[in-house]
């Protein structure tokens, strides 16, 4: 599994993922230099907001599209067959790919966070280490996106997997709307609301950006609970994905 993960990491890096980091770094630096003049005394907040939002946005794009390509493209290109012919179980392959992309995202998010801190230091902003809590939460959300992408790529085609993943991630971002659905549609049964609220991946859990930007303390137990939520949800997704992948007939 470690070999598969290492290979996946090398493979994803070759997909020019790291180029987005250069783009990100340039964007951040330009923002830091320009926005101080455009906004009124909000440059530091804007750098933090843009930095964290860009990290999340770029991360999601990478997680969705590379996550899908990991399995479904290999199936479509038939490059999976030689791998399956080796003494390697489907579980090892599937989980190894998840771990490999997870590591790529870790490097990616780490570099983006370094870019954010560097920009804050250059512009004499407050490089508050508490920002790392929001970065950690973003990383957890990216792992969840990868798990969703891999589940769909194991059961359907690349294009459909992309559409389904994007839809589910978007739905998960509106979990607060789902929870308050009764306010606008009083006729909706409570059980349906509860089912949707608990079944959809709740991406709002991982949104600590607002809190850390304003220097609000995020208790460690909150990080603990969202980590546990992430582990549980990913276990479910990878479990279903693996079951589908194991039963899949390759012709």
């Amino acid at each position: 599994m470690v070999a598969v993960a290492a290979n996946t990491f090398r493979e994803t890096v070759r997909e020019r993922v790291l180029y987005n980091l250069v783009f990100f770094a340039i964007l951040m630096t330009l923002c830091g230099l320009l926005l101080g003049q455009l906004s009124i005394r909000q440059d530091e907040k804007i750098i933090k907001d843009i930095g964290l939002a860009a990290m999340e946005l770029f991360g999601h794009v990478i997680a969705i599209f590379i996550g899908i390509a990991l399995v479904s493209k290999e199936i479509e290109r038939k490059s999976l067959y030689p791998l399956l012919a080796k003494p390697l179980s489907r579980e090892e392959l599937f989980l190894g790919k998840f771990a490999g992309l997870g590591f790529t995202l870790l490097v990616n998010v780490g570099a983006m966070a370094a870019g954010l801190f560097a920009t804050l230091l250059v512009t004499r902003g407050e490089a508050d280490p508490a920002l790392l809590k929001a970065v950690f939460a973003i990383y957890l959300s990216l792992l969840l996106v990868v798990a969703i992408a891999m589940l769909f790529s194991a059961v359907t085609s690349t294009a459909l997997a992309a559409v389904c993943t994007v839809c589910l991630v978007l739905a998960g971002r509106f979990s607060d709307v789902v929870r308050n659905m009764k306010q606008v549609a009083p006729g909706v049964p409570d059980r349906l609301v509860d089912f949707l609220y608990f079944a959809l991946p709740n991406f709002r859990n991982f949104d600590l950006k607002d809190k850390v930007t304003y220097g609000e303390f995020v208790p460690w137990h909150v990080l603990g609970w969202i980590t546990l939520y992430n582990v549980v949800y990913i276990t479910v997704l990878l479990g279903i994905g693996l079951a589908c992948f194991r039963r899949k007939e390759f012709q």
Partner: protein
Amino acid sequence: MIRATSVLALAAAAAVPWVQARVDGALGAFRAQDEVLYLWKGSQVKRMVPGFEHLAADLYWLRTVQYFGGERVFAKDKRFDVLYPLIEITTTLDPRMEIAYRYGAVFLAEQYPIGAGRPDLGIAVLERAVQNNPASWRLHQELGFFHFVYRRDAKRAAEVLVEASRIPGAAFWLKNLAAEILGKGGERDIARRMWREMLEQSEGALRENARIHLMALDAADAVDLLNGRVALFRERMGRLPRDLGELTAAALARGPLVDPAGIPFEYDSQTGKVAVSRTSYLRRDDLMGETR
């Protein structure tokens, strides 16, 4: 064929700056962009950007600043129609963005054309600010100031300042100020004290705004003094002075009779009234005819 196409492309490329220069000549070098808002409510925008509300708030704040600056500095017919919705959207997306409330309220409340001339909306913005940030005594203080300075509502101003004084960490003088307001002290003196506090606590444009207000109050005091001297002149000479120079000649006034911005005061020889010049940015119609 390829050669002809290349020549045509080169000629067209060379023509672009020439055509652009003609367009600039026809429309003016600076063409203010028509401001359009497709979404007028913060709650609508909020639904469009789940998880990225603060980023959107920053972008809307940048747009607010650019819009206000563009209208105030460049536009011939200054319009601030979109200002309040922009501030409302910004503060709905990020209810803790104090700077947007504070600057937004000033942009809205200042008299036209310096601002939008809508103190009611400025106060509405600050009302929302204290609702969303109950622990911020500075926002309460500014709401109190706005009630007093822009609405002349001493009772409400004092109430808000007393509320502000109860917030932990609030400045000790807030209670005294509230008492002074209710004690019907000289309005101009209280306003001066408020603007001085604002000057000391603020930076940038807000500080500059407070400085201009203090200068306008000094100009209003100087006008009162000169009106008194005109009355004295009339008592002594049995007629109104023909111009303000006569006051100086009669040793009733000294030095150049200009406001703190260096612009000569206006004098109406028919009525004997002195006023801050219409061309001076220190002229405040709300301060005219009011005494210390």
